[in-house]
């Protein structure tokens, strides 16, 4: 069996991201003829951020840097050094958004890329360099393209992300090369021994500690023995704060997980089966169902499938995948099933297939055909997105909504409404022993009660003109007002879950208790009906 190829990672460091972006935006404005003042070449400019202690320099142009303006100084100090300094506000959110787009765009050099905030991108180019004629040519290509986009970048290729980052930030490229390359098989530790400890991507306070310990270069870490360092940093669990962990990641002893950026989540449908299937006919049925669901999903996105991947999860822990490429974007489920039919014939079901998933790895925009719209909806049914669209257009946005849980213990606030196709926020579900009604009245309705004792449970109440005898009850469940939201005079509620003589189940509450000093005798309300 062939061993997996060693990883090759490209690190891209946009050394002057904020300034480059600003200059580019300026240039675009000038092209459009909107800019009034024309700057020649390099203006003496700094971008500032507002901090608690006043404006602070976030980025500078080369000219400003030459004039003595340093990043991180207060604006007042910088003005004293360089009175001609022009300032503009920095845009960190815009920089990050730009970096995200850049990360996706950088996938031209490798199949996946990850963000390295605030100003870097990591691209995994394993097995992709030959497409560009080798790693040197790849670097040259990247350097040329970035230069054309007006971005100052430093590039490096190394076997690990840590080493590539270190070389991009601190390595010096040979003349005529786009960046630094650490060839496969070289001893990483030895090659990087002369770099400063800042190349380890550590927090500032850790760097300060290392500097005070007199450890200035990566090679110095080897000199004093691993035990001593591990003892000194024994409480630091995060990689950012532990030089040994970072060093191991840099050398490749410890893997470094990274979150890849995904430009566009692919359309996916899946079917999890209660009983594993072992026969082809059943798999064809499953495929037919998946294909129909996939086509409805794609219809909702206005896309057609070009490449479909069917993955079958087997009970014994194996995955069988089959890929289908289509010459033109399609949303024809029957067509897809026909094409898949011969590919799935040789699937080895093993002990059975328990889950099947169909993914549209590649989809292209495919407009709805106007003539076919109603006919196809009548025949195949509409997608959820299509259905929601139709409902919203006739009934309005306020009419079609999805209720979601909200973190509040006041019952009417525990549910919020949001547009139906948005994903629900993750919240903690309520306790199972807190019985909640199936339906809640829009506004709790006052009821007139008869009770034995003022603080006790009512025996009988009148709601909407009819009398109800309380046969069984559970409570009280005391729900206090949210003091951070309501006025101080808000009263607490005692909820009772009751069942009347005819078996009807209600949720009623008493607003306040006698003698709480927040009003007279407490009132009773009916708020919800149980199943």
């Amino acid at each position, binding site marked *: 069996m062939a061993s997996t190829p060693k990883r090759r990672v490209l690190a891209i460091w946009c050394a002057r991201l904020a300034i480059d972006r600003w200059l580019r935006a300026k240039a675009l404005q000038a092209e459009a003829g909107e800019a009034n003042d024309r700057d020649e070449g390099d203006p003496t400019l700094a971008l500032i951020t507002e901090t608690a202690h006043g404006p602070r320099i976030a980025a500078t142009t080369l000219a400003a840097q030459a004039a003595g303006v340093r990043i991180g100084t207060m604006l007042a100090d910088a003005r004293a050094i360089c009175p001609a300094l022009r300032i503009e506000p920095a845009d960190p959110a815009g920089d990050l958004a730009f970096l995200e787009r850049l990360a996706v765009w950088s996938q031209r050099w490798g199949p996946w890329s990850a963000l390295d905030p605030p100003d870097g991108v990591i691209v995994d180019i394993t097995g992709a360099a030959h497409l560009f004629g080798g790693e040197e040519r790849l670097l040259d290509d990247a350097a040329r393209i970035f230069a054309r986009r007006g971005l100052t970048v430093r590039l490096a290729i190394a076997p690990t992300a840590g080493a590539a980052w270190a070389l991009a930030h601190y390595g010096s490229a040979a003349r005529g090369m786009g960046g630094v390359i650490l060839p496969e098989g070289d001893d990483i530790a030895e090659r990087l021994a002369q770099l400063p400890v800042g190349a380890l991507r550590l927090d500032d306070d850790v760097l300060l500690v290392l500097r005070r310990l007199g450890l200035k270069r990566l090679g110095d870490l080897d000199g004093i023995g691993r035990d001593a360092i591990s003892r000194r940093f024994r409480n630091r669990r995060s990689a950012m704060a532990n030089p040994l962990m970072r060093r191991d990641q840099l050398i490749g002893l410890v893997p470094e997980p990274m979150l890849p950026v995904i430009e566009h989540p692919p359309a996916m449908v899946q079917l999890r089966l209660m009983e594993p299937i072992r026969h082809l006919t059943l798999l064809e049925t499953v495929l037919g169902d998946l294909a129909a669901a996939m086509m409805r999903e794609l219809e909702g996105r206005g896309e057609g499938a070009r490449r479909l991947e069917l993955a079958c999860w087997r009970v014994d822990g194996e995955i069988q995948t089959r890929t289908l490429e289509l010459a033109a974007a399609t949303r024809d489920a029957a067509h897809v099933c026909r094409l898949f039919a011969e590919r799935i014939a040789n699937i080895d079901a093993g002990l059975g297939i328990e889950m099947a998933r169909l993914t549209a790895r590649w989809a292209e925009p495919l407009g709805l055909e106007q003539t076919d719209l109603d006919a196809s909806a009548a025949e*195949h049914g509409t997608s959820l997105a299509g259905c929601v669209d139709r*409902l919203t257009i006739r009934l309005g946005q306020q009419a079609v909504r999805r209720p979601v*849980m909200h973190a509040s213990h006041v*019952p009417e606030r525990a549910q919020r409404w949001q547009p139906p196709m948005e994903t629900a926020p993750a919240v903690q579900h309520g306790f199972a022993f807190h019985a909640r009604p*199936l339906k*809640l009245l829009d506004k709790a309705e006052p009821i007139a009660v008869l009770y034995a004792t003022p603080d006790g449970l009512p025996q009988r109440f009148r709601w909407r003109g009819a009398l109800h005898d309380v046969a069984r009850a559970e409570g009280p469940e005391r729900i206090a007002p949210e003091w951070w939201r309501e006025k101080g005079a808000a009263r607490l509620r005692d909820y009772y879950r009751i069942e009347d003589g005819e078996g009807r189940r209600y949720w009623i509450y008493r607003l306040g208790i006698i003698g709480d000093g927040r009003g007279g005798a407490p009132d009773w309300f009916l708020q919800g009906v149980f199943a």
Partner: protein
Amino acid sequence: MTELTAPADLSADLPEGLFQASDLAGARWLDGGGDGEGDAREWSPATGFRGAGEIFASGRDGAGAALAVALARSAPRPLAERGLTEESDERAFLWVQDAGAIRAGGRPYVPGLPRDLAHRMVHVAVKTPEDALFALEEGVRCRDLAFVIGEIAGNPRALDFTASRRLVLAAERHRVPLWLVRVDARRDLGAARMRWEVQSAASEPSPWNAEAPGTPNWRAELFRARGLRPGAWWIRPEMATGGRDGGHTLHASRADHGEHPETPGAGDMVRATGD
């Protein structure tokens, strides 16, 4: 001697969505499909039903909506006909209410819904019954929905036999179960395959607190059904027995011959002579 072609073979040639009239027997929409006779004999409300039904209920309690949810979620997916069952269903469902129904009984409340349904609801609040019928029809035409629940108050003019028939046909054509709760309505003409009238009944004793209401219980009368004998039933959801979704089976027993919920009714179902 040549064998005659079975009528069932003809249906294979029909395009999707069209089926033979013989398939329209009520039993076709029951769990398992199959031949009507055998299924109808063993039928109980706990059997999954995938068609269109109506539930008449009072606006003063939650029995109508609760029974609709309970019956709708036990409907099998179309794939179940081929012997395939899914582990969990993550499709959305639609709940349509007109203004009268909201005024009478309020809106569905997510913390009180069964946990496997709570995150799947799309709610449509409309002002008029006409809009509610439009939303219901759009809902049953959407095959990405698990089921559709409607609540319409009273006997509006828009909901006549024709509108009802239209809904039922659309629901069965697209195989999306539809349960329409008729809040405070009198029994009028309707085309639904099953028509129930439901009231709350005294709940089961709570296992932990003798004074507290326990598992809900409903007394439901099936007063019109196609292919099934009408009758009254005690229906209650079974207590959750664990598992991710909790068990959502129904427990149903005949209420024709006795008032006690546990009295088993005689299982003498016969096919209705016609309807």
